[in-house]
């Protein structure tokens, strides 16, 4: 029984990492209707920038600040050069554009900063901790804590500040928001910048966990099942979705895996998402789209 709970909790904690990545997506999707495939590449870029600066001897806090600035500038450029010209096109077109974008960012990241795996030391040791009878990873716990803090900050941002309210207005109805004078461009820039920062946090945590390397950008693909289960437009959904995917993956790998050969983590989450699509197409918390002829 203990083993089951350990696996479950381990999965949940790992799931918070997925949630972090998914939150970045939800932010951008809510505000601009784009599924930003480049989120993964942005993650990679953020992590690489930080690691490169840190390795050069730049102190932790400063490196962090510089990375944030770089990501924000990047967000601005993306908005201007990619999003604006494609503003009225279909979802699939926008997705493909972000696919192209991800290639550009990856190429730049590896071109400028090299493609070897870099160790990222955040000063958090991955040692096992004992919580009662359960053995958990200290790193995972801290990552989960970081996720909680981040979500709280975001929640405060969205609900208490003017910018947050404007963001929600834009997400709700872009035309209406425009007509009351909300500066769409500013909002988008802010959203992408925030998403970049969320990406940075996620990137750093993931990078510390498995080394900063190219495959980090593929973590984005895992976000898709999370978003399908939790809904594309809800941060709460992203969190719950991430937890579900993390837990399910872990449990499946441990309990179902041995029956069919193991290593099912690459695809299990998708099958789960498929099942959800059949039962509840909009996700647990998402909005149903109505099609008009």
């Amino acid at each position: 029984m203990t083993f089951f709970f350990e696996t479950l909790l381990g999965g949940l904690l790992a799931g918070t990492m997925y949630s972090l990545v998914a939150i970045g997506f939800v932010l951008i999707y809510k505000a601009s209707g784009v599924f930003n495939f480049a989120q993964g590449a942005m993650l990679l870029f953020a992590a690489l920038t930080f690691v490169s600066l840190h390795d050069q001897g730049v102190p932790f806090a400063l490196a962090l600040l510089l990375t944030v600035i770089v990501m924000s500038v990047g967000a601005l450029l993306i908005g201007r050069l990619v999003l604006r010209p494609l503003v009225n096109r279909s979802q699939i077109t926008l997705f493909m554009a972000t696919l192209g974008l991800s290639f550009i960012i990856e190429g730049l990241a590896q071109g400028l900063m090299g493609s070897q795996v870099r160790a990222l030391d955040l000063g958090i040791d991955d040692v096992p901790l004992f919580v009662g009878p359960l053995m958990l990873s200290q790193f995972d716990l801290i990552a989960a804590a970081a996720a909680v803090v981040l979500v709280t900050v975001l929640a405060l941002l969205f609900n208490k500040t003017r910018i947050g309210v404007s963001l929600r207005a834009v997400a709700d109805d872009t035309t209406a928001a425009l007509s009351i004078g909300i500066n769409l461009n500013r909002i988008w820039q802010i959203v992408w910048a925030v998403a970049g920062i969320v990406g940075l946090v996620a990137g750093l945590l993931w990078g510390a966990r498995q080394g900063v390397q190219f495959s980090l950008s593929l973590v984005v693909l895992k976000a898709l099942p999370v978003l399908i289960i939790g809904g594309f437009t809800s941060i709460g959904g992203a969190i719950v979705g991430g937890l579900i995917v993390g837990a399910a993956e872990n449990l499946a790998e441990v309990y179902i895996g041995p029956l069919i050969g193991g290593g099912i983590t690459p695809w299990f989450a998708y099958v789960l998402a498929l099942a959800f699509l059949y039962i509840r197409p909009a996700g647990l918390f998402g909005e149903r789209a109505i099609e008009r002829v």
Partner: protein
Amino acid sequence: MSIPLAQHTAPLLLIQRRMPWALIGLLALAFIGVPLWGNDYWLNAILIPFLVLSLAGLGLNLLTGYTGQTSVGAAGFMAVGAFATYGFLLRLPELGLPVALLGGGVISALVGLLFGLPSSRIKGFYLMVTTLAAQFFLEWLFVKFPWFYNYGSSGTISAPRLALFGHDLNTPLGRYLLTLVTVLLLTWTAINLVRTQVGRNWMAIRDMDTAAAVVGIPVVRYKRLAFAVSSFYLGIAGALWAFAYLGTASASSFDINRSFQILFIIIIGGMGSIAGNFVGAAFISLLPIFLSHAGQALFGGSVDAGQLQNLQKIIFGVLIIVFLIKEPEGLIRLLHNLRDRVRQWPLRF
């Protein structure tokens, strides 16, 4: 209940029948010119992959460009074709190569049909996720179950024998001709398909599937057909990729990056076009070579291969975005416009 045609007008069916000189020229070049003058490098490293990628692009285009079902799992179905053909060649060699290829395509079509079943309930973005599931699942399948690669220790497959009517095809020229003939035959059937009611129904589904249903098109059936036919083409392309080009392949030859590559071929070449696939594939095949030569020329041979790859990535990404913004119909549309302007040019005052 038929429409009475006006008595005084004979049915005037104006069909333009022009001699397709360009096409004939290309075919002559392909069948006669290349075998005469081509060297092994060109055949192995450029022409064969170009042809196979065109075929793969064509397969994906039928599903994504014509029927509007976005798929990022193309490489997974290529893998099915490759491994299935391998199975036929290995276990039923008496059936011969053409049957093995067709069999690989048919099995791939069935798998495609299976993964296309959700298209009756989900569409657009979410459907894309199922194709992603297919991609990862199939990759895993061909690694985890040694039966597929005949229990070899390295997980790879290579064609036991590539022969047709007793002739050994395992030479660059032989593989080239095999690929050429296969690609041409399949392209011809694809052209037939898209020009007839099947193609129209597919395009109707792409443009507005609710209206298509109202007009009387069995949408679910055609979506599934698109998945099946697309996977058929992709399967044969996969088999050719493994045996006519690479020689030896494994599941990792058909990973998600390959899927993206095929998607790029159709975006750059032109979605909803047959010729576009060839243009896109040519572009994707030739760009790396062009870049490395340009790199050599500009920097005198001291360019890091890895950096070239990164540069290539950046260029591809930029091109995708530029095409999506400026010319969503791809290079083929640009070429058509160019051709029309060239035709007009002497008469422009």
